[in-house]
């Protein structure tokens, strides 16, 4: 009897000291799930993070993620999943460095974690060596990405469909590794805000002075029009035109009218070729300079110190912009010369400027 008792005692002691893993079931810490969309019935990625006080370092240490009924797992497979984890000993998962990116496969191999779904449960099974890239140490942070945000070994192509009803839902994490915990997510009827704004079409066009004049012309000197109608012996700005638009193709500005006329007499328009001032010879022409915006003076009115007045092309383009333009100010200068035989009289001309936006 004593022998039997001794044997039993020895067996008991041996069993007591036999090296077995002690499972410490603990609550997972720092758990979160970030969705790419919280809208009902919408495909969404999930980024699940948690800290495991126990760790997972043996081949039997499965990790399960259970989604509530109503979420569509859509046959998500290992190609749509990333599993990464940090070193152990973390005090939180605010900004851990995920130093270990595990390889996943449909089933666990010597070095790859297995991933499978059954109903609403996803199961991650450790490699058969229990380690994989690295054992998940106690207090390591884990990051599990589900959906197109999984990029290890290729980008995932399957996302999870959100529940069709707006409410809070609990995703449960558990498995044989011993730790467990829940994460609450919100599904909304709409998690988006649509913002609208209208920008109207605009065209700005102003003429600074509608009445200009040369004063009295002379065959011996050139004259330039001024806003006070007295004229000037030197080139000067008679008035300005301002044009701007938000039209996608800018604008076009044309001039129309006639040369200086008195009864049946006229002062010859310079024509389509820009020409410099020649006192003693009849000339009526204009030139422009542009500033601001992206508008530009068109030929033949853009040449420096030369003037043109192409009545043959009227209404003739004097300036344009090919894109939306802030206001461009065109400085317009007018030239008049007469010959010694130019008939006396009060000559006038009426010029019409038109700006057209090109939307």
């Amino acid at each position, binding site marked *: 009897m*004593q022998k039997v*008792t*001794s044997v039993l*005692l020895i067996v008991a*002691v041996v069993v*007591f*000291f036999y090296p077995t893993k002690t499972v410490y079931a603990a*609550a997972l*810490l*720092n*758990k*979160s*799930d*970030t*969705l*790419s*969309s*919280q809208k009902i019935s919408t495909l969404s990625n999930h980024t699940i*993070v948690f800290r495991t006080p126990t760790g997972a370092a043996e081949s039997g240490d499965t990790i399960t993620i259970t989604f509530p009924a109503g979420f569509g797992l859509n046959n998500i497979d290992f190609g749509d999943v990333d599993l990464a984890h940090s070193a152990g000993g973390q*005090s*939180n*998962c605010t900004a851990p460095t995920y130093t270990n990116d595990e390889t996943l496969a449909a089933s666990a191999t010597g070095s790859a974690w297995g991933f499978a779904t059954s109903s609403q449960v996803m199961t991650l099974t450790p490699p058969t060596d229990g380690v994989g890239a690295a054992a998940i140490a106690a*207090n390591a942070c884990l990051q599990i990405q589900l959906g197109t945000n999984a990029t290890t070994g290729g980008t995932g192509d399957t996302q999870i469909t959100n529940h069709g009803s707006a409410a*809070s839902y*609990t995703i449960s994490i558990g498995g044989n590794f011993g730790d467990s*915990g*829940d*994460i*609450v*997510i*919100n599904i*909304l009827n*709409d*998690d*988006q*805000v*649509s*913002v*609208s*704004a*209208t*920008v*109207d*079409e*605009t065209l*700005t066009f102003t003429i600074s002075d509608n009445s200009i004049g040369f004063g009295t012309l002379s065959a011996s000197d050139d004259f330039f029009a001024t806003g006070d109608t007295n004229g000037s012996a030197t080139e000067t700005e008679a008035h300005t035109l301002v044009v*701007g638009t*938000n*039209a*996608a193709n800018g604008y076009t500005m044309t001039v129309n009218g006639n040369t200086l006329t008195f009864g049946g007499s006229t002062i010859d328009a310079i024509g389509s070729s820009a020409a410099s001032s020649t006192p003693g010879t009849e000339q009526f022409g204009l030139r422009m300079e542009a500033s601001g915006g992206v508008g530009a003076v068109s030929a033949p009115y853009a040449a420096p110190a030369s003037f043109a007045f192409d009545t043959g092309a009227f209404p003739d383009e004097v300036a344009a912009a090919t*894109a*939306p*333009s*802030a*206001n461009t100010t065109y400085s317009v200068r007018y030239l008049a010369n007469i010959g010694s035989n130019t008939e006396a009289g009060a000559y006038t001309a009426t010029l019409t400027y038109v700006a057209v936006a090109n*939307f």
Partner: protein
Amino acid sequence: MRFFIRHIFAILLCFGIILSGFPVDFSVVLSRGRIVDRVYLAMQNDLVIDNFYFGQYAEAAQVQIEPNLFDATDEYSPSPNVVFISDQVGYAFYVDTGVDNVSYSKTTDGGTSWGADVDMLSTMGTDLNWAAVAVWYDQWTPGDTSGTLIHIAAVNATDDDVYYASLDTNGDVRLNPNTVITGTTGTVFTPAGDGSPFITKATDGDLFAGACGTFSSVVQCVMHTSTDVGANWGGDIGHSSWNDDDDSIQFFPLSGGDILAIFQDDTANTISTRVYDQSTGWDGSALLNRALTDSATYDISWGAALNKSTGNVYLAFSNAIALDSTTNDIEVWKYTESSRTWGQKTNVLNDTEAYQASVSLDANTGDIYVTYAQGNGGADVADDSDIFYVKSTDDGSNWGSPIQLNSTANLDLWFVRTNMYSDSRLYSVWYDNTGNDLYGETVADLWAWEQAAYRFFNNANGTDVGSVLGNQDTAATLASTGDAFRLRLLLHNTGQIPISGENLKLQFAERSGTCDTGFSGESYADVTGATVIAYNNNATPADGDNLTANANDPTHSGHTIVNQDYEEANNFTNSVALIPSGQDGKWDFSLKDNGASASTAYCFRIVKSDDSGLDVYSIIPQITTAAAAGGAPTLSFSISDNSIGFGTLSSGAERYATGDLTGSASEVAAHTITASTTASSGYSILLNGSTLIYGASNIDAIGGTNTTSTPGTEQFGLRITASGGNGTVSVPYVASGFAFDTGAFPDQIASDPDGDNNATTYSLRYVANISATTGAGNYSSTLTYIITATF
């Protein structure tokens, strides 16, 4: 029998292995620093044009210890008159007016306040016209680590005797009443004209005391010794050259029972030293022999201190005591006990109006503090002087900036003295000759407490704790609402803290952001039995019981842990045992969730009982209360309007989105987002999407910098305000301008630090501006708001 032995052996083996398998905690060595805010003050020296003294005020204002001194001008001695037996408990001795008795005041709060004068009538006689007093504390003598007596020598002018008495600080018992050291017919002692008493305890325990005056019709300084703790005194054995009644002497114990006497000859105007050997008598020649410049007003200008650890003595004196001039230097000399030689250190001051000095030593570091009085350059130094101290951390080679101790201006301040040597507090006292007041202030609080390590445990009805709630120095979460729990906390210290050395208390605060060592955002309050985090009253142990150590207790850098007690109420102290320098005290706080919000984090800190902080906070314990009843964590999130609009934009005016899509010319909330959670770490809200787009055209997003609205410039941005709960808007969306940081998308726009489940409503304001060239069209944007809770 063998069967039972096997059983016992097996069981013991099991316990042994179990115990040896307990986890071992590791801790991180944390550096410590001392942070003291000081106010800088510049004081112009009128006598030296363009020369400014830059002083600092000490940590606290001066304290009036006694308002009614007998006659300040007669009370000086270079020997100490103040003793601190711990950081908090000190005694200051003086001659009180009225019945003119030697008296003392006591502080129990580190010199912040002092009790009423306690006269020494029963020991020193009644109304004897007492003059100066000198003291020596047992533990100032090398080798004495447990003595509790303060030895007192005093002289009076009525019976012309030199008296001895002692005060046992263990119970404040006055001993050896009315013991006459010397006093014979023909003795004439004149307080205003004669010198001061002095006393010390030699390393062999004998007492040496004396005074300068006229004794037995002879003008001299006398020295007597007692071998029976002051009960009886022998004859005069003073040196023959001590023949002036106005001289001053200070004694120090040297090795082998020898005595070092520092002697100021008021007639020759010199300061010199001699060594007395109890076997062979006085040494052959005086050392040091420094010449002084006399003053008719301020005869005594010096003081010295003994480093008990090394046996070295440091002497500071003003080498000229001329008033209202700038010719005085404060010299510092070191007596090296091993060689018994003097060497000069760097002068503390040169060419100033400093006219008195005293030395005190930090027992922990050996740092030297010289306290001195200095005129302010006015017409008469007696009308305007201040008290300063300077510190040297390199044995007197260099000195720090002066720090002012007194806080009352335009007084005639005299006779700075200190408690000479301490591992906990150095304290200076000085006389205000204007009002015959005694003032004092801490020169240096030498105990540096560090909140060093912690661990949370489950509660247990005993002085031991339950199972661990988390790792050391790691935040923990309670399992259930209303849970009791234990906090075991280590306070590391420099400086030896005697039993019950300092009163401390535990405070808590709801976390704001993080439980940070700067307490940013938290409002701490004392833990009581009624606060939401409250002390928990366990049935069996009582507040103040000695704690029972636990194998899982926190540790700190391998330091020795001195277990203290179990606490159920503030205040607390190290009532179990003293804490030697460099070790840690451990306390066990019994606490509970007393109606705190669910899933809410609380921070803990220790402060002194006067609400002043510890010197260093390396860790801040954090506990999070359990989730709301039912245990199910919650997360709530809603968007008030999913469709907003600006209407028609203009390059001439800013436009704000509205819920009716028409927009507004003035800033308005377009919609709100409301969020709450019980998740212990709160939530964050993210924004994703794009700026306003029409075909290939877009309106520029403002970006990651908060920017004001600028009409005429393309801008699309967002700003958010928060109300309710403790959720906060994140940068850059929180300022008065707008931002839209697409480069950071999904970008955090708001967060909540805890799980108090209090809803926060965020008001979102959107701005859009266009330029003159912004393409026409119907622009739109889709913004996605995501909330993530961390449980």
